[in-house]
């Protein structure tokens, strides 16, 4: 009986896993098929050819290299800046009696909960006004501004729960506010920072809406919106589109695999309280 149940569990779960991993594997396999193979047998058939030229086409002709560079130029500073600023705010708000600190914190969180649609037009107009429109600066700025509230809220919760004695000891030893922040609090907050870092990396890297709102030129597009362009450029070359898709997915998968534990605990941060 027990054996039967174990068997049913594994059979069911393997089928389900296949449903989840199958489409992904299919695309990976398709990215190595030749154009003629797909044209002759359709995208639903098993592979009868092998080529890696698709990756070269997506990489150079399709402009994925350029797009990946744009993505990195946006994502890395955005993550660092927003976490840095959020850590500063969280530190001040959680460890000091700042008047109205709770209101400030909730206001900042509320900003992050807004549907972005209400911000799109004003943000596009504001970046035109400041001359930032269609530059990566605009995208970095809006990513930092929009993400800040949530990161501050999470880091605040984390810092608030750190024991006060550590800060007192540092104060007695003559450490100033800045030193307590950089030498004591930041190192202690590392698990939360790592979790949020992994999460925000994928969020910003995967973003489509903000990119197509503040950017116009194809050459400026990060890899997520560029993937949609690639689809227009290689209309029926499904193998090249598949290769482009794989390339666009690799960075976030890499971050996930490297920071797996942090990533999952980051997602759970808000859930368990």
């Amino acid at each position, binding site marked *: 009986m027990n054996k039967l149940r174990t068997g049913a569990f594994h059979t069911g779960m393997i089928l389900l896993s296949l449903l*989840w991993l199958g489409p992904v594997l299919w695309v990976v396999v*398709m990215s190595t098929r030749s154009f003629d193979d797909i044209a002759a047998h359709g995208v639903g058939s098993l592979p009868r050819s092998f080529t890696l030229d698709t990756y070269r086409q997506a990489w150079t002709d399709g402009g994925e290299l350029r797009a990946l560079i744009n993505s990195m130029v946006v994502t890395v500073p955005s993550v660092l800046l927003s976490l840095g600023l959020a850590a500063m705010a969280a530190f001040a708000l959680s460890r000091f009696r700042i008047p109205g600190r709770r209101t400030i914190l909730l206001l900042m969180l509320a900003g992050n909960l807004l*549907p972005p649609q209400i911000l799109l037009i004003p943000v596009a107009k*504001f970046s035109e006004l400041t001359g930032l429109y269609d530059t990566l600066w605009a995208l970095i700025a809006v990513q930092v501004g929009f993400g800040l509230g949530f990161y501050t809220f999470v880091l605040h919760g984390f810092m608030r729960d750190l024991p006060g004695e550590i800060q007192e000891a540092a104060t007695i030893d003559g450490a100033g506010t800045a030193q307590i922040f950089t030498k004591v609090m930041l190192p202690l907050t590392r698990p939360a920072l790592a979790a949020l870092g992994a999460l925000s990396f994928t969020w910003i890297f995967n973003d489509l809406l903000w990119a197509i709102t503040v950017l116009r030129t194809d050459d400026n597009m990060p890899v997520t919106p560029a993937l949609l362009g690639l689809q227009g450029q290689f209309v029926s070359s499904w193998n090249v589109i598949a290769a482009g898709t794989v390339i666009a997915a690799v960075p976030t*998968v890499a971050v996930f695999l490297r920071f797996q534990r942090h990533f999952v605990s980051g997602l759970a941060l808000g859930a368990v309280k």
Partner: protein
Amino acid sequence: MTATISTTSVTPIRRRRRSARLSPLLVAFVLVPFLVESIWVFWPALQGFWFSLTRWDGMSPPAFVGTDNYVELAGDATFRGALVNTVIWLVLFGGLSVLGGFGMALVLQKERRGVGFYRAALFTPVVFSLVVTALVWRVFYQPDGIADTLLRAVGLESLIRPWLADPQTALYAVILPALWRQIGYVMVLFLAGLKAIDPALHEAARMDGANSWQRLRHVTIPQLKGVNAVVLSVIVIDSLRSFDIVWSLTKGGPYHSSELLSTYMYSTAFQSLRLGYASAIAVVIFVLALAVILGYLVRAFREEA
């Protein structure tokens, strides 16, 4: 923002955790991030409400028209369709991802052989962007793609249709990939919640002779109250924000059959250049999200207290 600067000396022992000294540095620590968010979020949000009361093409200055845009919305069939689709989206995408995610979390909560792999499999799509997800599923829906091949294999050719180009199926064909990606995410939230439940509660219930259904109903679900609230907020906010997957797969078409409020707002703003009207749609989205946002904030407020 009323951060005052005082220089009371610190009395660490009596005043645990917080010293009363507010240096200019601390004020800057709060002010700088707050200003950044003000410039890119608070101020634009206020402008958004104002724009919704104007007629504006983006070139000439906005002209105040009062509530004209909202009156027009009330009679706009496309808007009504998008509203209905958004509700369908909320119910199907939201409801099924909660059910699926919770179910998977229950099945996979106990550590046993293979569970790590299954969890990872279900979680994999979460790290992909929605555009990547869309392209993966486009292959699935292609004429002669995987969906058609599978249907042919089981003799159901008659069901085959251009899934994304048929107004009857487009919306559901878009929901499916969105679900595929969301279930793993919801599962992780519930797994974390389940892990936090004290096993002694289950043990006690079992001693009292409760069967597994009763334990689920009377121990697990009540214990997950906090997680449920978070998941619910996340789902509603995510549903109302959903844009990428629809934009990548159908752009709201064909004939607005998969149009959501978010995609209608975007195309009205940046393709039809009716910025005032689009702002009014954005305000509607905001109003729909408001109850959930407030609920979330009230919870957060209580936690901070």
